[in-house]
């Protein structure tokens, strides 16, 4: 048992040393998550988007070439309650008929030291595009890597929740968006 553990650890250490030289491109959609948190009448709520696609290209050694693009299928939203799921697809909220997806496109990445980075980019929701900054951590382990980050947007900036729903004392204006993107290294060309 002990010797096997040692071999595994040795293996991990070897992989670890080569990790930074790899470019991570293959997004593992079924291991990745995009979730969000908000407050409703002071009650913390959590939701998620079941369907999204992501394309990223990231090498910590070549940050100037880093790229990320995430497209979220808004109709795949799960707010935590069925009644609300129907409501948020409707016109006052996401209006998914007219705007089926939301997208983030990076414009740059800078390092914050260690495994911490910051992605600058443009977030488009409901036909409105605004600049956002999303701090994230990058962790590589052999051929696998993950991005983890959280940033906040104000829903009214994107007209999410119009009419009576502009009342932010019931559904808070601030929405925390959390992402966990799992990638594998680009396969070697044969």
């Amino acid at each position, binding site marked *: 048992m002990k010797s096997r553990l040692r071999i595994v650890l040795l293996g991990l250490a070897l992989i670890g040393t080569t990790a930074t030289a790899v470019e991570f491109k293959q997004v593992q959609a079924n291991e990745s998550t995009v979730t969000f948190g908000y407050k*409703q*009448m*002071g*009650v*913390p*709520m959590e939701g998620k988007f079941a369907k999204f696609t992501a394309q990223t290209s990231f090498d910590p050694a070549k940050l100037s070439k880093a790229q990320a693009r995430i497209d979220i299928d808004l109709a795949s939203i799960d707010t*935590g*309650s069925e*009644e*609300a799921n129907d*409501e948020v697809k409707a016109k006052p909220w996401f209006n998914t008929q007219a705007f089926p997806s939301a997208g983030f496109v990076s414009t740059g990445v800078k390092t914050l030291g260690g495994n911490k980075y910051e992605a600058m980019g443009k977030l488009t929701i409901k036909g409105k595009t605004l600049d956002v900054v999303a701090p994230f951590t990058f962790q590589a382990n052999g051929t696998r890597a993950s991005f983890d980050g959280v940033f906040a947007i104000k829903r009214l900036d994107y007209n999410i929740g119009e009419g*009576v*729903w502009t*009342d932010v004392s*019931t*559904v808070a204006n601030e929405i925390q968006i959390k992402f966990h993107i799992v990638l594998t290294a680009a396969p070697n060309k044969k």
Partner: protein
Amino acid sequence: MSTPIQRYNNTAMALHWLVALLIFAAFPLGVYMHDLPLSPTKLQYYSYHKWIGITILLLVIARVLWRFTHTPPPLPASTPRWEVLVSHITHLALYGLLIAIPLSGWLMSSAKGFQTVWFGVLPLPDLVEKNKELGELLATVHQGLNVFLFLLVGMHIAAVIKHKFIDRDQILERMLPKGMSK
């Protein structure tokens, strides 16, 4: 009318009338809000209903503690045995329901995925995990218990009317402050 009325003390009266008032707010609110289409108003009503319910729970726990540590004023010696029995059973059931109903509501809220945050400030723990079937079951329990409460409160008020206008005794006065009764 020669014997002086023995009343409940101020604590017991305050708890009784406050809980009565809150029941008359939470019950119709609960019935009304249920079928509203989703709107900020609906979310507010649900929160108010939960806040009132948890308040009732705390006040009723206080009342039960009061009852354990005090002897309520006696019933008139002329009260028939069956009335004494029915009165005790009704009161016991009312206490039970006023604890079980807010509890079932709190659990239902958790099972449906909404934590209860008392007055939007104090988060209560989720005692059960989010679970759709459990949420629906607790909704049925909450409703069913409220039907019983409705009937028992009706009986309670009917008994007051009977004692006041038919028996013409001073049962009601035990729960009224001095200045309010002749």
